[in-house]
C-alpha cells in the first residue's frame, strides 16, 4: 500500500486487489518432476533408416547442412547423419521426405556433454544403429559440481552474436513458470562470480575477444554451456565469414544444448546434465527415452 504522503498528486484509484495471477499455480515441476506434455505440433526431426530411400531429398532441403548422406559405395552401406547441433527445427527435411523416413517428434531432452553425441548416424536399410555407452561428464567436472558447488551453479550468460531468440528463452528461465533459482541455479552479473559460462550466438569476429576475456576472468574450475544451433555450430550463420561457428571454436565446451532456440525445458535439462543430475539421453546412434 502506498503512503499518501509520498504518493504523486493524483486521486488514488481503487486499491491494489488480488487478481487472477495471485491465485493460479504457475511454476512447472520440471526437471524434478515430469516433463510437461507438448502443446504444439512436433518440430524435432528424427530419422528411421528402414524407410529411407537414400535419395537425399532431406539433405538438399536442409538450409544448415545438418543432414549428410553418404551414398552406398561398392562393398559398403550408405549412411545418413542427422546433426542436432546444426538443426534449426525448420522441418523442411520432413516436408521434403517422400517416404516418411524423416518424422517430427517432440524431443526436448537433447543436451549432451559430447559434440559427437548430437550426430545421429544411421546405416541405411538397417534399423537404428548400435547404441554405444552414453558419455558422461568427465570426472573432473563431476567432482567440481558435487564437491565444490554443492550442486549449486552460478551462471554468467554471454551473447556472442545471437539473434536474441536464445536470450528470450534464457530470460524465460527466470520467469515464474520456470523459476531457475528454485534449482539452486543463479544468473550472475560478473564472470568473477560464475561457475559456468552460458554462450549463445555463432561467435562473431567482434565478440571473440570479449568471450575469451569473460572466460579468462572466471575462477577455476569452470564449465561452459554452448546453447542453440548457433552456439554449437554457427547455426543459420555458419557459412558467413563474419562468424567463427560456435562457442567451441573459442573456449572448451562441456555441455551442448541444441535447439533454435532451445525451449526453456531444454535449457533446464541442459543445466541438469551440467550438474550431473541427469545422464544425457542422446548418444551416438540413438535417443534413449521418449
Amino acid at each position, binding site marked *: 500500500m*502506498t*503512503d499518501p504522503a*509520498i504518493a*504523486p498528486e*493524483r486521486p488514488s*484509484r*481503487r486499491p*491494489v486487489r488480488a*487478481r*487472477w*495471477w495471485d491465485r493460479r499455480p*504457475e511454476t512447472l515441476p520440471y526437471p524434478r518432476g515430469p516433463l510437461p506434455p507438448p*502443446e*504444439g*505440433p*512436433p*518440430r524435432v526431426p528424427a530419422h528411421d533408416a528402414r524407410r529411407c530411400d537414400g535419395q537425399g531429398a532431406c539433405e538438399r532441403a536442409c*538450409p544448415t547442412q545438418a543432414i549428410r548422406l553418404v551414398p552406398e559405395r561398392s562393398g559398403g552401406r550408405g549412411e545418413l547423419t542427422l546433426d542436432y547441433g546444426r538443426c*534449426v*527445427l*525448420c*522441418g523442411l527435411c520432413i*516436408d521434403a521426405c517422400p517416404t516418411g523416413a524423416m518424422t*517430427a517428434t517432440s524431443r526436448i531432452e537433447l543436451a549432451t556433454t559430447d559434440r559427437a553425441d548430437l550426430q545421429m548416424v544411421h546405416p541405411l536399410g538397417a534399423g537404428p544403429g548400435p547404441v554405444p555407452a552414453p558419455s558422461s561428464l568427465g570426472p573432473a567436472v563431476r567432482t567440481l559440481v558435487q564437491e565444490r558447488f554443492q550442486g549449486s551453479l552460478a551462471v554468467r550468460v*554471454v*551473447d*556472442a*552474436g*545471437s*539473434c*536474441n*531468440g536464445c*536470450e*528470450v*528463452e534464457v530470460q*524465460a528461465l*527466470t*520467469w*515464474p*513458470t520456470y523459476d531457475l533459482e528454485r534449482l539452486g541455479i543463479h*544468473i550472475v*552479473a560478473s564472470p568473477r562470480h560464475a561457475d559456468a559460462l552460458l554462450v549463445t*550466438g*555463432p561467435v*562473431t*569476429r*567482434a*565478440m*571473440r575477444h*570479449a568471450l575469451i*576475456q569473460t572466460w579468462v576472468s572466471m575462477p577455476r574450475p569452470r564449465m561452459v554451456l554452448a546453447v542453440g544451433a548457433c552456439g554449437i555450430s554457427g*547455426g*543459420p*550463420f555458419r*557459412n*558467413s*565469414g*563474419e*562468424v567463427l561457428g560456435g562457442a567451441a571454436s573459442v573456449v572448451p565446451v562441456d555441455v551442448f544444448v541444441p535447439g533454435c*532456440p532451445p525451449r526453456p525445458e531444454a535449457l533446464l535439462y541442459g543445466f541438469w546434465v551440467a550438474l550431473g543430475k541427469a545422464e544425457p539421453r542422446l548418444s551416438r546412434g540413438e535417443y534413449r527415452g521418449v
Partner: protein
Amino acid sequence: MTPPGSEGGEPPRTAGAACGLPSPTLEPHREAELVQGLPGGPARWDPSDQLWVLSPEPRGWAGTVEQAAGTLPVRLASIWAEPDAGDGVILNAVLLARSPAHGIRVCSRLAPEARSLPSLAAVLPAATDFEREVAEEYAVEFTGTPDPRPLRAYAARTSGRRPASAPAAYPFPKVEGEGIHEIAVGPVHAGVIEPGHFRFQVVGEQVLDLEIQLGYTYKGTEALWVGQRPEDGLLWAESISGDHSVAGAVAYAQAVEAAQGLPVPAAAEAARGLLLEVERYAFHIGTVAGIALDVGYARGAAAGYRLRQRAHRCLDRLTGSRLGRGAVAVGGLRRPLTTAPAAVLVAELQSMSDGAIQIWEDLEAVASVVDRVRGTGEVSPAIARALQLVGPTGRASGIDHDVRRDRPYGIYRSWAVRVPTEARGDVEARLRLYALEAAEAGRLAARWVESASAAPGVGRIAPELRTEGAAHGLGVVESPRGEWLVRTVQDARGRLVRVHVREPSFLNWRALKYAARRAIVPDFPLCNKSFNLSYSGFDR
C-alpha cells in the same frame, strides 16, 4: 494520464492525439503532380514497389531527397545501396507516405571510379547511420557527413573492411571539466542481453552524454541471401531479430511476393495477422514486465512474465515454435495453424488482452513505480521527428505513425487498428503504450482466430507462379518495435542478388542517447528497457 478503457469496450483514449503530429494525407493525383515537380525527374511509376522513382545524378541525390522530404508529407524509411548489372552500385533512399498516397524512391547510379557524393545526413540527421552503413559496405564516400566513423567499428576492424574516408580509430566524444568522468560498459553486459559498448560522460550521477557503439553481433546476414532462391531465404529473415521472428518473416515474404506478383490467400493473411499480433503481445507485455522489474516492483514483473509465457504458449500451440518460427512461407503459410479448439484459443487471447489492462492499472496505482517512470528518459517530439523514430518509441513522443493503419497490408486492410499515442516521450508514456498496444494486440488476435483457422498450408512457390527475369520488391510491416522494411532484388535467373533489411531498431537506437542525457546513471537501464531495442537487428 488517463486510465485505459476497461474490458475493451471503449477505444483507449489517445492522450497524445491533440498534441501529436498531424499526419496529412495526400491524394494520389496530387502526389503525382508534386513528384513531377521534383529534381531528378521525370518521375516514373514503379508498379512493383508501388512507389514513384526519381533518378538524379549522384551529386544531386541528397538535394532531391531533401527537397522531396520538404515538399511531400513523407518520412525517410531507409537508405541502402545495391549492386547494378555492371560494376557500379545504385544508391537508394525510400520515402514513404501515408495511404492513399505512396511515396518516392530516389536512386542514383554510382560508377566504380566516382563513389563520392554530398552527404544527406548533413541536412537530415536520420540519414546518418544509413550513410555510415553504405560507406562501410560499398566504399562510398559522403562528403560533409557529420559522422565519418564506421558503423560497426570493431567488426570492420577485425575483418579488414573499412570505409575509405573513415579514421582508423573510433573516437568517442569526451566531455571535459572538473568532476566529470567516463563510465565504459560492455560489450558484455551484466544481464541476459545482447552485446554493445556504451560510454557515459557523467558528473556525479547525472549523465551528460552517451555514445553507443554497436556492431558486436554483426553476422553478415544480408550477404548470406545472395545467390539463394527467394523462397529459401526465410530462415535468415526469422533470425534478424529472434523476438521478431514472425514480423521478419512476413516482411521478407511480402517483399518477395511483391517482386513475383504472388497473391496471398485471405485466410493466410488472417493467419499471419494472428501470429503477428500474438508476437506483438509477447514483446510488449515482456517490456512492461521488464520495466516493472527494473524499478524493483517484483510483483508486476512476475505478473507480466506470466502473461508473456501465455503468449509464447499460444505461438507454440499454433506453430510448434515458441517464437512462431517456420510458420510463414512465401505465398502464404508453411502449414495450417493448429487453432483447434478455437473457442479455447479465443478465450485465452481475450483474457490475455484483459490481463494487459489489469497490469497497467496495477502499475499506475503504485507510487514507487510512478515515481521512477514519470519524467524519466524524455525524448522530445522535436528529436523524435528529426530522428524519424518508429513504433511505440516514436508514438510515445507524438509521432502518430503505425504501418498497420498508415500503409495497411494483409488483413489490416480490412480492419481498423486503434493507434494510441502520447506526447511526453518519457518512460511512463512508453510503458502506457506497450500495455495498451498489448491489449489491442490480444483483442485483434482473438478476432482473427476463426478466419485464420481456414488457412491451408501453401508451402513453396509453384513453378508456374515464378517470375522469370529480374525483379525487385519491397515489404513493409509494423513489427512490435515499429516499421520493418525489407527490400529484395533478384536477377534474371530468379536468384537473389541483394536483400536489405531495415529493422526498426536501426532508426530508434540514436534516440537512446537523448533519453539518457536527461537521466541519472541508475535510470539508464530503465530508459534502455523502455526502448527495448534489438542489437542484432541493428547489426544484422
